[in-house]
């Protein structure tokens, strides 16, 4: 049992596979001839799903850890900057109904919880702006289509916090090349046709059609929805969350820009529909647009019609990909010597771009906590499972939050979403708490939190949630401190708007001149 863990076999070559293989290889200096070897087995015939096109700011750290140049990444992956999400028509469904979930914390977060002050000053009619506009300068940048940095800002540094929109297919290709050429990952193109294990249930090798048996000490299942190793072979059950998250279908299209200088939105646009919502992601050379909906509430024809209405005439030339969604995840993610990363571990509707961030968090955990030998692997596995069960649940809660605050009644979809029977108990408890206090960091005590309290603030107050500060008015006496923060935010807006280039302009310059590394 006390065999060192040195050969890691990653099965599956999508973004999840390459990110995990790359993180392990970089962390363990595989290229410098260390004891650890990383092999990635990829089917030459199965295409990748490739709709994960929105990231979190964590992707910047991930790319840095992989030793990737941001300039090259942007040039090769059709990437653009993303500064959060704009949620349109989620509350009332009216044309002017929108709010932002930016990627920056509210001004002075940690020093002053501004929610109460914002609420008070609005009641006293001293301010009229929304919570996100009053406390964060990022929405104003996004509304003007501005980039989060300058051409003179070094790689991975920012003026305003940012993530990326990217072409998932190109990103996989780019990662593959980098992992093989720079990080020493061995790439095997072969179809897995059998999985072999020892008496303890550990996987010892995978049998392939083209390359025979491939042995390893540890296996990473990145086989997508099929969950070949963890789900099919190790029989780990799937926990279905479709009772909470009612979406079960996606229609995805790619739409070219009207002309080559058309503005590129620097945020994801999510527009609520009758029984779901449409994502709109601006890359450099095209937009990725899709409709996720509940097939229990509207027909496919109706869903396509709504997507067509959203896009306009350009829709007629697009080919529509239909993707079934099963919101849920495996009961555990690491069993014996096999851990699942990506779609093989689970999938939730892409409302908050949680797919890639879960891949990054998993890859980081595996790379940095790689068990030295088989004897301690079960302990690592247990901790991994606890951590990620918690994270999946937190994400489900946060996604559900968007639905329960809606006031829409145009389809039973929205009414069903607000049915308490569909709301997780953990979220109900938080909602009860927030009736009398604004979300704060102490509401989230785990160091494995995915969404900070600030994110809950943006969604709650963006969607018109009312917290009753009647019992805590004594905490709102320092109005001067709050006013200073609001003033600081106004200055930040003016400065950012005056200095930042448009998203399109900066991306063009990065192609022409590149970003400096310092």
């Amino acid at each position: 049992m006390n065999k060192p863990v040195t050969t890691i076999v990653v099965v599956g070559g999508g973004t999840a596979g390459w990110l995990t293989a790359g993180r392990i290889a970089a962390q363990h200096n595989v290229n410098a001839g260390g004891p650890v070897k990383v092999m990635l087995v990829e089917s030459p015939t199965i295409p990748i799903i490739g709709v994960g096109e929105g990231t979190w700011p964590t992707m910047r750290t991930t790319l840095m850890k992989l030793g990737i140049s941001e300039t090259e990444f942007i040039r090769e992956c059709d990437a653009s900057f993303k500064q959060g999400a704009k949620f349109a028509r989620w509350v009332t469904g009216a044309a002017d109904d929108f709010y932002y979930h930016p990627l920056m914390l509210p001004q002075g977060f940690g020093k002053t919880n501004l929610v109460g002050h914002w609420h008070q000053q609005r009641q006293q009619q001293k301010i009229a702006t929304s919570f996100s506009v009053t406390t964060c300068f990022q929405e104003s940048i996004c509304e003007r289509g501005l980039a989060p940095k300058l051409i003179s800002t070094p790689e991975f540094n920012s003026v305003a916090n940012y993530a990326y929109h990217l072409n998932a297919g190109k990103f996989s290709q780019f990662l593959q090349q980098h992992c093989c050429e720079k990080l020493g990952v061995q790439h095997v193109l072969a179809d897995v046709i059998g999985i072999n294990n020892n008496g303890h249930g550990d996987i010892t090798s995978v049998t392939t059609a083209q390359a025979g048996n491939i042995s390893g000490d540890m296996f990473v299942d990145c086989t997508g929805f099929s969950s070949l190793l963890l789900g099919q072979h190790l029989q780990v059950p799937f926990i279905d969350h479709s009772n909470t998250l009612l979406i079960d279908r996606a229609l995805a299209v790619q739409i070219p820009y009207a002309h080559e200088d058309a503005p590129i939105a620097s945020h994801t646009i999510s527009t609520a529909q009758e029984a779901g919502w449409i994502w709109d992601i601006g890359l450099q050379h095209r937009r990725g647009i899709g409709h996720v909906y509940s097939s229990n509430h509207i027909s496919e024809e109706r869903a396509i019609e709504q997507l067509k209405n959203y896009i306009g005439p350009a829709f007629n030339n697009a080919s529509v990909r239909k993707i079934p969604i099963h919101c849920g995840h495996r009961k555990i993610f690491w069993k014996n010597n096999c851990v699942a990363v990506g779609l093989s571990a689970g999938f939730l509707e892409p409302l908050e771009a949680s797919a890639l961030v879960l891949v990054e968090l998993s890859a980081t955990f595996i790379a940095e906590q790689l068990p030295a030998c088989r004897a301690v692997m079960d302990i690592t596995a247990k901790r991994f499972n606890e951590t990620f069960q918690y994270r999946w649940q937190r994400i489900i809660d946060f996604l559900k939050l968007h639905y329960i605050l809606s006031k829409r009644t145009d389809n039973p979809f929205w009414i069903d979403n607000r049915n308490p029977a569909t709301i997780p108990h953990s979220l109900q408890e938080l909602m009860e708490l927030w009736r009398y206090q604004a979300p704060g960091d102490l509401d989230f005590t785990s160091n494995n939190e995915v969404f900070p309290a600030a994110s809950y603030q943006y969604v709650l107050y963006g969607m018109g949630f009312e917290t009753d500060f009647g019992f805590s008015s004594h905490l709102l006496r320092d109005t001067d401190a709050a006013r200073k923060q609001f003033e600081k935010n106004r200055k930040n807006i003016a400065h950012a708007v005056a200095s930042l280039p448009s998203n399109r302009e900066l991306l063009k310059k990065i192609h022409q001149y590149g970003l400096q590394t310092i």
Partner: protein
Amino acid sequence: MLHFVALNDALHKDLKINTALIEAQGAYERMVPVVLSEYLKLIVSYPIVFTKNAETGKFISVALLGFDERENLFWSDSKWDSIYLPLNISRQPFYVGDEAGETIICIDSKSPCIARDSEGEPLFEPDGGDTPYLQRMKSQLSQLLKGEQETRVFINALLELNLIMPMTLDISFANQQPQRVQGLYTINEERLAQLDAEQLLRLKEKNYLQPIYTMMGSLGQIYALIQKKNERLGDA
């Protein structure tokens, strides 16, 4: 918009330049781009640093003239108070342009240095040849043109060896007013000390050690610049 016109001995036969106004063209520049071949002259007065071109993000070599926007501490009493005037000031109002791949000399037809009366340096002799003044300007422009290319190669060599690092100046002036100056870069001395023999030899063979040390030495001029600013604050 297009007021940079190619110099032409027929078109500009009677044009004269008021050389007394040339220095004033840099009166409100906080920094001026400089080239390798003038480093040894610059070090007498100016801190030589790198900054980024705001349009391209690329590093350029500059002489620092002030701390605030539009502040040139060498500009005092309507004259440039220094022994050496950087080429990018003294070559005004001439520019190097490009026409169908050919390098040509242009003049800023809207420059205030273009003499309005008969006073000033003529560009062409009555027989059409260049005046000694224009010859001098042409030679400065060619030094700049060659120098810009050399300086670019120099900067790329430094970047390759990670020898450039950001420099933040936290200055307290005599009136206690603190100021943080950002966006400047200099030689990373620590990294320079770590270079191996082969890397050092390559720098030596390209004659880069001298400008590297000149840049490092020139940083002492920041104190002189602070003093200039303090004197100015004292006068105010």
